[in-house]
């Protein structure tokens, strides 16, 4: 299957949407977010960490996700991110906008 590596410039706005969506099912650490996005996209999307972490910090600063430090089962210090109420509202907005946008793009591409 063809694989797409998500770069910063490619999906600037949509990466935020994807991260927020991945956290709807429950809190995850950074690697977990990238893996969940990979699974949900059935291995099509693979997030470059150079884009992932800046995006995580940006979302955290905006108050859409909250990061808390914890300890992994192996005893490692890890940071776990969860969706905030503001994040849920933002996700709803972004999903609506994306649906509109992708439908529009689809119509353009399907036009004869």
């Amino acid at each position, binding site marked *: 299957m063809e694989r797409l*590596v998500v770069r910063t410039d490619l999906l600037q706005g949509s990466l935020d949407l994807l991260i927020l969506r991945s956290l709807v099912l429950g809190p995850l*650490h*950074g*690697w977990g977010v*990238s*893996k969940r996005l990979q699974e949900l996209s059935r291995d099509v999307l*693979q997030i*470059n*960490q*150079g884009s992932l*972490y*800046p995006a995580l*910090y*940006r979302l955290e*600063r905006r108050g859409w996700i909250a990061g808390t430090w914890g300890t*992994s089962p192996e005893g*490692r*210090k*890890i*940071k776990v991110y969860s969706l905030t109420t503001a994040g849920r509202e933002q996700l709803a907005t972004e999903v609506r906008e994306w649906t509109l946008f992708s439908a529009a793009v689809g119509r353009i591409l399907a036009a004869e």
Partner: protein
Amino acid sequence: MNAEMQHHLDLETDYLVARGLTPQEARRQAAAVFGGTTQALESARDLHGFPALAEFWRSARLAGRTLIRHRAFAIMTIVTLALTIAASTTAFSMLDAVLNPRLNARDPGRLYTVKVIPDPRRIGRPFPSQIERSFAGGGATFESYAISGPWRGFYGDAVAERGRKTRAATVRSVSVNYFPTVGVEPLEGQLTLPAGSDVGSERAVISDRLRGELFAEGETAVPGTILVNGRPITVVGVVKRYEGVALLSDDVWILEPRGVPYGPWRLVRLREHATPIQVRSELEALSERAASQIGLPDLHTAFVPTPLPIGMSVKSLHYALIGAGVAVLLIACLNLANLQLVRAMGRGSEMAAQAALGATRSHIITQLLAENAVLVGLGLVVALLLTVGAAELIRVTVPRGIGQLIVAPEISWRMVGFAIAGSVLAVLLIGAVPAVSVSRVDLNSLLKNRAGSGTSRGHHKRYGALVVLQIALALPLTVGAIMLLSFLWGITRPSAPIERVGYDPTPIIRGQLRWTRTDSGGPISLGAIAPRHLQAITAIPGVHAAALAVAARPAGSKVTVEDGSGEIREVETLLWNYQIVTPDYFRTLDRPIVSGEDFPAEGGAEATVILDANTANTLWPRADPIGKAIKFGSARSAAPWLRVRGIVGDRRSAKQRESLMAAGVVRLTGAYRLLTGADTAEMSIYKRYEAELDVRADSAPPVVASAVRRYLAELDDAYPARVELLTEYLGIPQQIAAMRFMTALFTAFGVLALGLACLGIYGIVTQHVVDHRRDLGIRLALGAPPRVIVAAVLRAQNVFALLGIAIGLALTAFTAQWIGGFVGGIGVGEVAWYATTCVLLFSCAVGSALVPAVRATRIAPMEVLRAD
């Protein structure tokens, strides 16, 4: 952040291993997918936390490394900043201690003074002391009520002594609940007595300052005995003295177990949540109840509480001190800004390289500011340590004569706040100007030229402006210091006291001899009593002579004279007193009789008069007054006609006398009438019947003073008189100590300012020489003599120096008033001081410039040209 990404990499590796890859291959692939860790870290860092702060921290670390490389520069900057921040912070903390004295009392906000407004119908009759005594136990709205007043009719400056140590001290009587009301803790002993206890000698609480002066270190002051105005007092406790708090700025508080009957100062401590209005109404209700109990049912007295004032008013000296501190700090900042500018220009290529690699202008400014912040931060730490040291130094050296002006600085958070504010100002001044100007420089031209030489006309002007400002700020400080030094020199010359009083005050002891009314209530015979006391005092070992003087006012404020031809003239003498003196008066003071003769040693029945030259000239302008008749009263008054016996002179130098005459001191000054047996004490204008006592000591005046004090204390129970050396009575040692202290303070500021300004000029001229090395080299090669080179170098800086002096003179016109205001007697507008200071400052400026100028003549032309 790094740990989080590392964890990510590990998890990815594990995931890939689980999928069948070898660990090495898994790691490689994980890293490949991840992208550059550093890059990710960098872009994440920009979003994480406060980017400016992180950037600043990075810059500060870089700055630290840069400064370690330039150690000499860093140390010089830190020392300069530390000295100047410490100087201005010390000045501030002195002002702060004046404004906000730290009163270590229980809840001082509940302390109120009470003004008692007597019933108008009873004015003139004493207020019954039983009324206030009934308040002592407190009430519903106040905890306690204390009274203080004069001690045995005496209030204010007294003389405290112990063994051979003698100190001026202020004394007051206080009720035994005084200190519990104030709510301070004793440093030693106790601050109260059981009410009603009345045994043996009087007991008192003394201040820590007096304790330190009369008792040795380690010696216990409680119980100890001191003499206050010759009377023995037992010390029961020691309390901290607070200069700015009226209640606690004395030295001796005599505890009165029987109450202070006519104490004019009342203090009340409110209960928690009580208001002054509630206290007022309760006191008035209690007063009326107590008044009706003692048979005065209609007595309505008002008791008005007002919050206890804490802190002193700000005087011109404080502005002068703060001004001096800030000026020195500004000079230092300008100096360092200049130095930074030069350095920054020198580092132009480094900046250019940074800019070429993508550093923005804000990056470069941040880096330069960070460098300064590191320097100033270190300077601040050293400055705070220095300030604590300076505060301690001032604490032990501040003379008591200026206690009302300067108190020992206090270490407080406000002081630290001021130091930090000063440092922030320093960072901005030192860093911002050079940083902005460097970051504006055309980097291309800098890179093309050799390492930013800063030779452009614009930069030269900027250096010049900084030098002009430094000199302008240094001038007022130097003028102030020179004015104070000259004043100090004037008052410390051995002849200064003689010039001030007209005779040598050193061996003279002055005190007051006081009488109470005789039992019959009639006047006492001064003429009969005075010789008896003088005889007893002259018998004290070491006494050479003694005399009494009583001030008297002419009847109808007029003096009448007869000019020899029978013509009678009246002279107005408003607010003027003549003196009635005992025969040895002039012999005691050692004042020469320049014409006629002295009073006969044995006294006499005839009241004759001796005048000083001024008075004689005023009364008989062109005639010899000896033998003429004078009357201390109007022509019609019953005052007797008296004969002028002699003219008394003084021990001033002829030059000093002339300058006094030139100053227009020709008016009625001294007129002395011999005391006769018929004089009674009622002729004194003072209700207390007091006469001034002057004693001339043969040897050891302090020992003689102590003996005279004891004689007077035993003699008169009602008024413990103050007796002290005339020099101390006139405040000469106190004035000298105070002036010495202030002069030292301002001279330190002045020298610091002058030194910094010189350093600044030295720096700029050196830079000027470096910049013009090539021109100077060529001129030398063409045969220019060294003096032409020196003149060329000096010309540029002289313009700046003169401009600085001109601006400085304008500033001085404002600031000299502040200094002139507290030295008194200095002609603020005296051109001589300004001229001297300008010449001094200009010489210093030329001197500082001369070193690099002379060095310029040693430039080897060949080397310069070859290097080019």
